[in-house]
């Protein structure tokens, strides 16, 4: 016998995030690293950032830290927004 059931998932409350547009030109780009403190995350990302900075002809990368399990504090994001053009982040275990 046919039956109707209700969905268990509910509506999504927040709109999906859109990616920032890719930077077309690397020259002169200020590079930043948001290190989440996971083992070797800073080491790997800082190395990549330094390589990019050398190619871009820009100064030494800005490296900031955050707690792995919490969103980055507003002051960290604000500093990145104002001082860099490209951020390397996102390392898990």
């Amino acid at each position: 016998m046919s039956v109707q059931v209700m969905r268990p998932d509910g509506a999504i409350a927040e709109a999906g995030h859109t990616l920032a547009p890719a930077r077309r030109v690397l020259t002169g780009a200020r590079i930043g690293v948001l290190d989440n403190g996971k083992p070797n995350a800073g080491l790997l990302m800082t190395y990549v950032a330094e390589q990019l900075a050398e190619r871009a002809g820009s100064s030494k990368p800005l490296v900031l830290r955050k707690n792995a399990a919490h969103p980055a504090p507003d002051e960290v994001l604000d500093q990145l927004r104002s001082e860099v053009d490209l951020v390397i982040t996102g390392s898990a275990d």
Partner: protein
Amino acid sequence: MTPQGTSQADVAAAGVGDAGELLDLSDESPETLYRMMSENGWGDGLPVVAPTPSRVEGMLAGYPGSVDEVLAILPPRFGSATVRTVAVNAVMAGCTPDVFPVVVAAVRALSHREFNLRGVQATTHSVAIMVAVHGDIIDQAGYNAGFGTFGPGCRANATTGRAIRLILLNIGGGRPGDGDASTQGQPAKYTYCFAENTLASPWPTYARSRGVTSASAVTVAGVEGPHNSHDMWSTRAAPIFEKIASVMTTLGSNNAPMIGSEFFVVLCPEHAAQAANDGWSRQDAQLFLYDHARLPWRVWQRHHPTRFGLGAPWLADIDDPDALMPMVSPPEHIRIMVAGGPGKHSCVIPSWGIISQSVTVPVEVW
């Protein structure tokens, strides 16, 4: 009987994407329900009760507010946990309406900022949601606070914990490998609900110790499964609690690198009675464990470099390699309550770490 303000039409009235959208099934056999769950990425792998509008209506009976009220937004999917949607999942879990107030309160508690549900849902750690029930609702809704309180056999315990997990799976989107990165998972992620044995406790209720004085309350915590600590022989409290401290003192839990997080210590009635016979208050037990659950600093340094980013800043200034470092600080973060039946087995429940704090809230019963 149609509850005031909650008719079947109301329950089914919402638009696309809400729990009001109805799905047509050929029948409500387990096989058909499994197919529906699989096609939509829902469920915990176990059979569910079909969430028909009439069953959901029954779950919502008497709810004193709006069933469209959003109790919480649940990450990582950021699904809206309305009272209605929570009721759908409670039906699926096999809950009776008697336990629904606990489920509602637990969902509210999960949304507290200090709980950090986003991290708890997404981490590689095996953290599960422990639901501890306190007060009058235990008897009213048929929870088991005695023999086997953590285990199977009691519908209220089993289905309350399962409802919370289904809510986090279906609404929150915390699916293994997609939203939930837990490396191995653990059995407690199916269901993890027990009740405080208030009658057997020599101390004020746990909820009251956390400042919640309502007749009924619920605690949610992001924790590992219970680690047994048994002592069959001691006639004094100290040896019992030395063993408990030994179980706490483990390098492998997240409590190790993150001083400042919580431990739950659930004492069996007999161990708690021994402590009380020795004149110990709950605070005495906390202080004893704080003093005894320690590791030498050189052991910490070898296994948990301070630059990990989650250790307390003062750790960097410790220069005595033999200094004994506490597994948890302050002592009040050793959360002690009593549960279980006769027998001399207590348990230690490590937490996910300082990045999540347990929450205790009142349960409004209607």
